[in-house]
């Protein structure tokens, strides 16, 4: 029996299973270590509140125009695209309910998370990557500043707190866009639209959306920082860190979405 590393003796062989499989598990372990370190550093003082505030500004406030525009367009377009299929049943009066469920349950958190992954995640990956490459992080360590606490914890916390807020804004702006379309085509009044919107969603929807967006925020921050913090040397490493921050974050967001939807539906039926 031969093994890829060519050595059967467990004490002397170079890889546990194979180089690739080993690297996957090693990176999983690294991520696990990274997360544990994050919670440990976040819980212990001193707290970098000023930097946290700056990151909140970057992640939350600076993303607001882009997110609002995207949310508005999503609501407007989704309403317009749903109308033909509902009008086949003569059920265009149900548009507000449909939009409300779609926006609150799925569109607002997803759109916000994806846009934030593109804008904020890539930014973090590139920023931390270039700091790593230019050895600024090492310099910080030397100057008795905890670079993990200062750079990673603040960023991850900022995305974790800001994405849910951005989701609230997106949902509101999306519903506004939807209202404009519904009002223009079905002459539905604002109170009627408003009533229907809130009649068709439940507390479970609201809280699952909040929890979902918190997890999305955490994922975006964590992936961005992990990729940047662990980027390989050289300018190529920076580009790769930024790229993989976005790709991995988006991929994870969809995986999380599926899992959370399953759990919420199980709770909804029970």
């Amino acid at each position: 029996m031969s093994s890829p590393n060519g050595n059967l003796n467990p004490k002397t062989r170079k890889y546990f299973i194979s180089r690739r499989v080993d690297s996957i598990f090693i990176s999983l372990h690294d991520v696990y270590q990274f997360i544990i370190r994050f919670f440990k550093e976040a819980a212990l003082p001193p707290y970098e509140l000023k930097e946290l505030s700056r990151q909140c500004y970057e992640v939350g406030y600076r993303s607001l125009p882009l997110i609002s525009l995207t949310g508005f367009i999503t609501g407007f377009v989704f309403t317009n695209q749903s109308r033909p299929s509902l009008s086949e049943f003569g059920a265009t009066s149900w548009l507000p309910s449909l939009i409300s469920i779609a926006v609150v349950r799925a569109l607002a958190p997803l759109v916000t998370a994806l846009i934030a992954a593109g804008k904020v995640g890539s930014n973090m990956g590139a920023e931390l990557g270039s700091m790593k490459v230019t050895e600024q992080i090492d310099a910080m360590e030397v100057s008795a500043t905890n670079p993990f606490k200062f750079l990673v914890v603040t960023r991850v916390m900022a995305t974790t707190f800001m994405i849910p807020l951005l989701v609230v804004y997106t949902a509101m702006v999306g519903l506004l866009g939807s209202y404009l379309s519904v009002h223009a085509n079905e002459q539905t009044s604002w109170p009627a639209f408003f009533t229907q919107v809130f009649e068709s969603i439940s507390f479970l929807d609201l809280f699952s959306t909040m929890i979902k967006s918190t997890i999305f925020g955490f994922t975006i921050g964590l992936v961005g920082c992990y990729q940047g913090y662990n980027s390989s040397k050289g300018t190529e490493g920076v580009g790769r860190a930024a790229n993989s921050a976005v790709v991995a974050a988006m991929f994870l967001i969809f995986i999380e979405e599926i899992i959370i939807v399953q759990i919420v539906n199980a709770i909804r039926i029970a």
Partner: protein
Amino acid sequence: MKSENKRSVLVGIFILVGILLFVGGVLTLGGKQKRFVKTITLTAIFDNIGGLQTGSNIWYSGVKIGTVKKIKFTGNSQVEVTLNIEEESQKFIGRDSKARLSSDGLIGNKIIEIYNGNPRNGIVEDGDQLHVEKALSTEDMMKTLQENNKNLLGITSDFKLLSLKIKRGEGTIGAFLSDSLLAEHFKSIVSNLQMASTNTNNVTQQVSKFASKLNNKSGLANQLLTDTAVFRNLKTSVAELHKATTSAALLSENLKNVSNRLDDKNNAIGVLLNDPEAAATLKGTLGNLETSTKKLDENMEALQHNFLLRGFFKKKAKQQLKDSLAVSQK
């Protein structure tokens, strides 16, 4: 430092507005779903709830008054539905109310409708069980529809037969449509009818003229109908007339009495009129009176020629002559 302050303020505003929006949404949702409203619990047992779910709406007179709290099996494969009803609406729901399964719209969500209750017979209390009436399911509707379809088919096939017969000229309608003689008759009937209608038109015109005359303000009828003074006068006249007839009746009564008494013998005139004996006596008396007057006449004649009184009579004759002469001269 200044820009850092500004940044912090902006972040603060951003967070505050976001949280306010979220809390507003939660409160609105709570308000819509009546989560923070006091409720009472009612139950209803259905044979089949047709896909009703926890959280489905409950309507009373078309108004949402609560939601379905719990659904569970009970007894003989029946379903017990627990209803959360707002305490505010409790006083409007009679103890005799019934519950039925319904839907908001043709393909809408399942709801429970409470209806037919009279709060005067006592209102529902917490924990009461409502009577349930079996609602029409879609299958029932389809069944009825199928029955309708069959009936429709029967009707249309009957009509087909009928139209065939008509086409062939069978039956009254068929004859009517195909017989030319009948058509002629019909034509004449129609022309007669036209004439009749012309006449009727004339008559109505005249009636209308008459009516307009009646409406003429100076006309008696109009005054009778509109002028209250005339009516009052008429009323008084009638009253007077009534009085007059009453007195006339009284008079005739009196007259009758009088004539009755005339027939009687126990009064003077009655005796005169009715007693033949008295008449004979009266006749005798009258005869005696005549002879006495004749004799008196003779006596008087004799007296004129008496010397004691002759002068007076001569004087009287002279005076009479004088008077007659004066009259003739005039």
